[in-house]
């Protein structure tokens, strides 16, 4: 295009034509450099569309599969357990309902109130600043995951019930990845049969213990153990939790996280988590139950579950034409431990990058196309993650810090900022004057709580 412009330009101007002669050459080189899309130089995929396999059929896998299938790519979604009830808090932000077009009937409860309870049982109610249409959705994972998978299947993805075993690396830039998995179908029963699938790119969405991550040597991450008991409590006690979730903080409940009581469809989930003292998780769970004792009196434990939660992304989230998304990549926020939305969003973003890089399945993708997803992800969500990390470092440090945290939560501005950023996943800038007041109040709370703490230490000596 630039060369054509030069030609007309040359035609129009009467001045020395020689000076324009060298122009076409650099113009062409310039032209090639502008088009960084690596796919342009990739060979076309002949006779078929690009094949992509997604290992793991949770929110990340389901969202990725739908986007890929809609983008015209031959998609395979491999999930090991179709009716898996993944142990999970189950909270999704409001923006997820809109962004992923979730039907309102998969949301069991809408939480509009939260209670934060400090180590000395100071209880603060938050949620008064929420508008009537705003809520935190509580879902059952088995319902959400199944819905997303079905939608992906309806868009054209092939959903395979199988357990991923290993992957053979490709021999050349255009050779396929060979996936080995155990396929389960009605005929072979429980044992399953060994199957092979050849694909051009792989998305690892298989969760915190990702096998895909292991096979690409993505490295390890620190993880927290989240332990949860589902408790069926009497109806009158359940009424209190109708639209309210509780968060307990304290050294007794967790040294670096929080204990929670989240309402589910007809029972509550009481749980806690920790990174540094995993061996004491049972003790922390008893302490959480003790703190909530009066409110869950008469309840029966119907299920016990635990699962690891990544604390930070893996050292390598991408290798060749294999990308990790969701928990497999380690996209869980600090402070709140939120992962469902980020899993779905990263699955979608990765799929979009593949669709774009392959021009709707016509060309082979390259590592560079998948890197674009990482760039976009880091740029969009880095501030959110960093802010939550800072909050965790400041407020989950010690009991005085937690007391200050709960005190700060009583402030309306804090509530508004917190909910705005949680529900819409944007770090809202806020009012500078109010921010200053908030900073002063935070420091004041921390100072008071730490001063009391030192007096407490004097008492015990």
């Amino acid at each position: 295009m630039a060369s054509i412009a030069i030609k007309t330009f040359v035609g129009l101007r009467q001045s020395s034509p020689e000076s324009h002669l060298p122009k076409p050459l650099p113009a062409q080189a310039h032209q090639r450099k502008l088009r960084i899309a690596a796919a342009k130089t990739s060979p076309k995929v002949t006779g078929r569309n690009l094949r992509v396999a997604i290992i793991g059929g949770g929110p990340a896998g389901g969202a990725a599969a739908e986007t890929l299938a809609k983008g015209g790519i031959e998609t395979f979604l491999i999930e090991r357990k179709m009716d898996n009830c993944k142990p999970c808090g189950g909270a999704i932000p409001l923006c997820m309902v809109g962004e992923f077009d979730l039907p309102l009937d998969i949301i069991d409860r809408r939480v509009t109130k939260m209670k934060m309870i400090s180590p000395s049982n100071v209880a603060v109610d938050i949620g008064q600043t929420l508008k009537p249409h705003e809520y935190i959705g509580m879902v059952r994972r088995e319902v959400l995951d199944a819905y997303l998978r079905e939608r992906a299947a309806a868009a054209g993805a092939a959903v395979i019930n199988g357990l991923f075993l290993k992957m053979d690396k490709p021999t050349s830039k255009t050779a396929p990845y060979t996936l080995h998995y155990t396929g389960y179908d009605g005929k072979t029963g429980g044992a399953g049969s060994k199957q092979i699938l050849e694909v051009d790119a792989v998305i690892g969405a298989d969760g915190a213990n990702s096998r895909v991550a292991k096979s690409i040597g993505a490295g390890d991450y620190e993880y927290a153990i989240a332990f949860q008991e589902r408790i069926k409590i009497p109806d009158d006690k359940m009424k209190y939790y109708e639209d309210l979730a509780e968060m307990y903080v304290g050294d007794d409940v967790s040294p670096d996280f929080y204990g929670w009581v989240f309402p589910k469809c007809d029972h509550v989930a009481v749980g806690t988590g920790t990174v540094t003292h995993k061996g004491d998780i049972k003790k922390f769970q008893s302490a959480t139950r003790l703190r909530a004792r009066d409110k869950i009196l008469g309840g029966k434990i119907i299920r016990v579950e635990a699962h690891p939660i990544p604390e930070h992304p893996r050292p390598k989230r991408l290798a060749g034409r294999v990308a990790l998304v969701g928990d497999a990549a380690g996209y869980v926020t600090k402070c709140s431990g939120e992962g469902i939305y980020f899993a779905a969003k990263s699955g979608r973003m990765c799929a979009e990058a593949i669709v774009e890089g392959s021009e709707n399945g016509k060309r082979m993708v390259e590592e560079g196309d998948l890197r674009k997803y990482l760039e976009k992800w880091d740029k969009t969500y880095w501030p959110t993650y960093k802010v939550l990390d800072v909050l965790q470092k400041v407020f989950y440090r010690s009991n005085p810090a937690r007391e200050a945290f709960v005190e700060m939560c009583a402030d309306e501005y804090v509530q508004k900022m917190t909910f705005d950023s949680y529900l819409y996943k944007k770090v809202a800038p806020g009012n500078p004057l109010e921010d200053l007041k908030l900073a002063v109040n935070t420091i004041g709370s921390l100072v008071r709580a730490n001063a009391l703490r030192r007096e407490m230490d004097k008492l015990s000596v």
Partner: protein
Amino acid sequence: MSMALFSSPPKTHIPSLSPCPLSKPYLLVKPYIFLRPNSRPISTGATDNGSGAVGSAVVEEKVPKAPVTSSEPEPEPSTLESNGSPATAGSPVEEGFPKFVDPRWVGGTWDLTKFQTDGKPNWDTVIDAEVKRRKWLEDNPESSNNDDPVVFDTSIIPWWAWMKRFHLPEAELLNGRAAMIGFFMAYFVDSLTGVGLVDQMDNFFCKTLLFVAVAGVLVIRKNEDIENVKKLIEETTFYDKQWQATWQDESPSKGL
């Protein structure tokens, strides 16, 4: 304002003593974790008996993968209470859970009328009472109750009460240190170079030294603070490094 933030040592990561069996964490936690000695004095006994609540009646509708019968086999008596708590340091395995009681603690907050001297509340005693309450609760965590909520807010104690009690003694200490260092250094420099105090203050190098001395006295108050400050600095950038790890092997142009 007292830099109390930095004098409380940040929690270090204590490596977990028991081998974590959770390499395949979709299995549930194995029961042998219960048998670790209970080093934290929480009333664990409170959870398993007689409350009729969630403890013994484990009716699991879905049998999990590992046969974890969470029938709480951990009745280790928490005899490690070592504080002068006002109520009974009772044996934990009993029906009544020890609750914090104090005649001045009314309706979930401190009744300021009970702390009066000369018609005005004696804030020092309020602070003392709150300290005792928190200490008690740390050692005997209580259930949070909706009918009896705690509504005490430390900000009702006026700022000057905090200043008088906590900031001023520490400020006195630090100013004393700074003055001693300043006097000695001024004398030392004068004896070495013959430059008097007033002329020293004109010199840029001396002004820098003064700044460093004041900052040092403020930030480093105990020997451990040197390590703490180093750790804090590393902590602030650790998370960023973890996020950028995936870009390390890539060319610098693609980095964040």
